[in-house]
């Protein structure tokens, strides 16, 4: 009899934590590394804001909220889904054989191949930035809006995760997808930090409908700040932001499992 998925998840997390704790030195290093990467990003945004004051009609504190949302969403992705980028290695070393031989969804085994303890650093920094940003921005908080904000952060994390998952699924057929990982990282890392209207109508349409970066931070920030007129699409769509992440993620996981049928298992 198979264990329930919940039991399986508990077992897998137990193993990944134990694995992570085998390398305590690495852990400290990567915590510092992760924080440094975040700091660089903050610095970059800071420079832009102090040089230009406002971006696309959004004041510094409004852009700060956008950046805070984006960082929080990224932290969610990084903590729960970062191991998705290991799929290349997992496929090419044949570690994926093992995933296929266990009575647990393969995708779950990929996510838990290591516990992302180092990404806790991301979460703290993101929470701090978002906290400061929320205080500085003038938002008329209601219970519904707070709920929307939290759900959007999770949804934003899921959007980034779904893009990376689809990218990961390419590894089953392509020998090398490094270039794709970089592309998605820099696309998400760069463009979701800005109010997208500054790139003009075509770009904002592209990031809304083709690669839905608009819903990682831009759309929810516009709702919170009462600036949905800048979006270029109806506010109702922006209000549905929290739904997009879960839908895209379900699609992405389905694609991942379908693509895994092309796995060719390196010779043995």
């Amino acid at each position, binding site marked *: *009899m*198979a*264990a329930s998925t919940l*039991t*399986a998840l508990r*077992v*897998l997390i*137990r*193993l990944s934590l*134990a*694995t992570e704790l*085998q*390398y305590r030195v690495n852990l400290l290093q990567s915590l510092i590394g992760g924080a440094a990467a975040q700091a660089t990003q903050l610095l970059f945004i800071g420079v832009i804001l102090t040089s230009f004051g406002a971006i696309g009609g959004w004041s510094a504190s409004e852009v700060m909220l956008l950046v805070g949302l984006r960082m929080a969403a990224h932290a969610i992705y990084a903590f729960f889904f970062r191991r998705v980028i290991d799929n290349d290695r997992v496929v090419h070393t*044949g570690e994926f*054989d*093992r995933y*296929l*031989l*266990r*009575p*647990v*969804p*393969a995708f779950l085994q990929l996510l838990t191949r290591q516990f992302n303890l180092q990404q806790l650093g991301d979460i703290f920094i993101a929470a701090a930035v978002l906290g400061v940003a929320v205080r500085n921005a003038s938002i008329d908080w209601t219970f519904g809006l707070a709920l929307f904000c939290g759900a959007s952060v999770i949804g934003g994390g899921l959007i980034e995760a779904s893009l990376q998952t689809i990218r990961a699924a390419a590894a089953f057929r392509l*020998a*090398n997808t490094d270039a794709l990982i970089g592309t998605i990282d820099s696309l998400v890392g760069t463009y979701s930090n800005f109010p997208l209207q500054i790139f003009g109508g075509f770009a904002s349409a592209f990031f809304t409908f083709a690669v839905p970066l608009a819903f990682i931070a831009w759309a929810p920030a516009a709702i919170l700040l009462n600036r949905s007129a800048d979006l270029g699409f109806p506010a109702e769509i922006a209000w549905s932001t929290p739904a997009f992440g879960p839908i895209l993620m379900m699609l992405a996981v389905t694609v991942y499992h379908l693509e895994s*049928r*092309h*796995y*060719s*298992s390196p*010779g*043995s």
Partner: protein
Amino acid sequence: MIVAEHLVKQFHRRAVPDGPASRFRSLFAAREAVRAVDDISLAIDKGEIVGFLGPNGAGKSTTIKMLTGILVPTAGRVEVAGVVPWRHRRRNALNIGVVFGQRSQLWFDLPLRRSLEAIRDLYSVSAADYRNRMSQFDDLLDLGSFLDTPVRSLSLGQRIRGDLAAATLYRPPVLYLDEPTVGLDVVAKVALRDLITSLNVDGRTTVMLTTHDMDDVEQLCQRIMVIDGGKMLYEGDLKDLKRRFAPYRDLIVTPRSPSDADRIDSGLATRVSSPGAAKVTLRFDPQEVSAPEVIHSVSSQFEVSDISILDPQLEDVVRRLYGGNP
């Protein structure tokens, strides 16, 4: 228990060109198709132990990977314990145990014990069963001495023993063993065979075994399948195979005086040992002449100190099969 019909697996390889920008150009290189398995059908009943043989690159591992659900067949049908492995992967996982000699299924960075406990929980093995089976593994495979060593630090033989324990802990009705005896010492090999035999006898476990060690086959398998170039070359009883491909027996004669060695002969058998050897090998076809007749004809002409009869070696038989000259 295991049924496969007209199984085909085709791999695509991209030729990687030499020279500048080879990585880039390889994107556009023609893909060549390799048929690793080419129309194989087989059926294995519950409780059988089948030896799956063939030279390197024959397609054994590829076939096993299709039967386990790791690979999706290019064409053909597979069903194992009523389940199509690649389609109902998780249901299939509960029915099978797999050991690949070359690649561990264990959690590499953790002590072996952690892997076994994880498998206990993933397959809902009860605490009592776990204890009993672990003590059996300890008796047969001497697991106790390296249970707390991280898998990455285990020796090859220890690791394979760990893998074998992991694959049989939940007593799957079907066991696939792909070269499980590579790197095992003599004692461990015997222990592994004992474990397989006991699983097969007590639990009617169906076993499919790939190996290049013919002793494994002779000790364990009732039936063998030989493949080459992705095609089934022979399938049947081990005894029949020997009868068909090695229809001879050897009489080994040691003469009392070494000077006789080069003179010993019998009109009934062919001498196959090289001149100068201390022992003489006479080969005869048991269909045409009986062993006592050959022995009598030799011992009546010469004084011999020892005489023995050798059955054909499976190794020779298989070599002939692989070579394609029966």
